[in-house]
């Protein structure tokens, strides 16, 4: 029994019977004894229990960190499933390329990007990660290796993108890159003081900018915040100098730094920050990955850890639904200063269980205060459910089977593709018989 395998929010705290490592992409899949199930574990950046498998096994993929091919002319890369985006960035940005889609941390594995069909600030423009995947190899527990693409094993391709690691282990992935002129971003920030203002600003920004995302003050019901828009910088006569700084939260804090008082203060300071009036140029690292600058940031919530909550609301009810969510959250006094609001575009996702779909998505952390927090999240669930929305499995530690099935009505189509030896904490939970 081992208790050292954790997801990013360190909830739930579970024990694994076996912690296995795949040794090479050409090697056999290591399987736990008997009928015990397993789930691939990449770099532990997803939240909740999609990457955990309590009382059973995980297969770590960190040995699969090799590049396989990089076509510098066409902008196409093939790498192993355990390669992290940071390594891709280091390789491709100096050559004038960029990942087509990136989540808020560059420490995710490429296999994880596929399995969770991750999205980024450019979803309205570009879709999610799966839209840019050309092919991948899936290693099944019976030893079969399936090359999957839209032409070959297309049903496996669809089941595996956003398939939460349940269809087998992704050993290697080929995906297309985005051309860039340099590693810098042109960005602009807009302050808004109500949700109405946000919708107006956002609609305009989405037409003009490939990347948009808003920070929102979750302590205020009216929904004030800042919208950050960005695009890759055009060729510049002179590039600014950028140097990364490394900071870390060195130890597990015994208590949470986030309480209702610090939360109000943080949000107030953040909202009132001085914003550049015009467009400005920033390196891609601070633009895309501000939180990566502090290692182990997840420790600020203390040993009780935290929940992450991310939902999507369909377009026609986004405004009302969001207003109701903000009402519930601000009234509760819980939440955190890391609340993020974004609208998804209309490009259909490739995966059977993909989360991104047209509408507005809200994501935020909640320090774990036990029952009180869970009750709030249940209230938020009913808002999301009655709006016809869905929760993001990659950030979930608690959604009910009913909530999952409402949000992912296609779920039954997934079943024939789930590897009989694969399961996860998440998957067991949402497949529990209702009652």
């Amino acid at each position, binding site marked *: 029994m081992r208790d*050292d395998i954790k997801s990013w929010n360190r909830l739930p705290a579970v024990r694994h019977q076996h912690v296995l490592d795949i040794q*090479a992409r050409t090697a056999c899949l290591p399987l736990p004894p008997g009928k015990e199930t397993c789930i691939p574990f990449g770099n532990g950046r997803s939240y909740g229990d999609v990457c955990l498998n309590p009382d059973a096994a995980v297969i770590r993929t960190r040995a699969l960190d090799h*590049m396989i*091919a990089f076509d510098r002319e066409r902008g196409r890369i093939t790498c192993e499933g355990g390669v992290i985006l940071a390594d891709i960035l280091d*390789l491709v940005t100096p050559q004038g390329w960029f990942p087509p889609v990136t989540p808020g941390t560059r420490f995710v594995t490429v296999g994880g990007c596929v399995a969770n069909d991750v999205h980024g600030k450019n979803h309205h423009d570009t879709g999610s990660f799966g839209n840019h995947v050309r092919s991948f190899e899936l290693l099944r527990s019976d030893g079969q290796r399936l090359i999957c693409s839209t032409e070959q094993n297309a049903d496996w391709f669809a089941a595996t993108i956003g398939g939460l690691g349940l269809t087998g282990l992704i050993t290697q992935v080929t995906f297309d890159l985005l051309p860039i002129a340099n590693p810098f971003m042109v960005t602009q920030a807009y302050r808004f003081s109500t949700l109405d203002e946000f919708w107006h600003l956002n609609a305009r920004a989405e037409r003009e900018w490939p990347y948009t995302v808003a920070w929102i003050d979750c302590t205020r019901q009216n929904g004030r915040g800042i919208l950050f828009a960005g695009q890759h910088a055009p060729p510049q006569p002179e590039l600014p100098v950028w140097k990364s700084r490394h900071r870390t939260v060195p130890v597990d804090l015994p208590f949470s730094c986030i309480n209702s008082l610090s939360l109000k203060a943080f949000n107030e300071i953040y909202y009132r920050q001085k914003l550049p009036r015009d467009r400005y140029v920033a390196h891609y690292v601070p633009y895309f990955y501000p939180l990566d600058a502090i290692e182990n940031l997840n420790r600020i919530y203390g040993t009780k850890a935290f929940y992450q909550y991310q939902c999507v609301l369909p377009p026609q009810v986004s405004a009302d639904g969001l207003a109701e969510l903000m009402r519930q959250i601000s009234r509760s006094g819980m939440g955190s200063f890391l609340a993020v609001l974004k609208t998804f575009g209309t490009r259909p996702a490739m995966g059977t269980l993909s989360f991104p779909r047209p509408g507005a998505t809200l994501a935020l952390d909640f320090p774990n205060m036990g029952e009180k927090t869970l009750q709030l999240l249940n209230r938020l669930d009913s808002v999301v459910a009655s709006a016809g929305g869905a929760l993001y499995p990659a950030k979930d530690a608690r959604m009910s089977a009913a909530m999952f099935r409402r949000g992912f009505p296609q779920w039954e189509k997934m079943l024939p593709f789930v590897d009989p030896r694969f399961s996860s904490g998440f998957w067991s939970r949402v497949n529990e018989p209702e009652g």
Partner: protein
Amino acid sequence: MSNIVIFGATSAIATACARDWLAAGHNLFLVGRNADKLEIMRTDLMVRSTQKQTIATATADLNDFSTHEALYAQAAQALGAPDIVLVAHGSLPDQKACEASVELTMQEIRTNALSVISLTTLAANLFEPQREGTIAVIGSVAGDRGRQSNYVYGAAKGMVDIFLQGLRNRMAKASVTVLTIKPGFVDTPMTAHIPTKGVLWSTPGQIGQGIIQAVKRKRNVVYLPWFWRIIMLIIRSIPEAIFRKLAL
């Protein structure tokens, strides 16, 4: 640009070193046991490389000492005369199993000490007439004092440590650098079975960077990270009468 030979190249620490050395523009000759893994590593380095560099490989069982001389000849043919040799192969013995088997104990000593002595002897003889070169060997803090929990591994690493002291002394006249690297706990496939990695643990990447720096600075002995020097100083200074009763 240097020509670098790495033994045990597919190990986690050696891979980290190879990637950093590649980025710095050096040529690499990689020796490993598993042909599949070596080829995966070579492809990876080729994809990452941005300049004209040679990356060559050889598959070998380093416990077969008779292959060692030929490996250096192959390296010289692929790259030209080597400038740096990194000996990074090794195994972490199951101490309990070794206690029950003399054969296994001897096998582990062979892997972790004798093969290293063979490889470094040959490297020294190559570098001595050149009057330059660096021999870097991954030892371990475990070689600083014998402990009940892993003294077979410790004894092998300790033998390497003393052997390299002598070799360094001999090579000083030839201005050849002999570097003993003593990592502490490193989170690698070799230690994957050990749960709950605490603050004393490092990543292979951190150790790799430390090795690159130490080679560049022509250091003699480095503890990685540095604080292990202090920890081992304390551990070495405990009187044997007390030490023998400790469960370290």
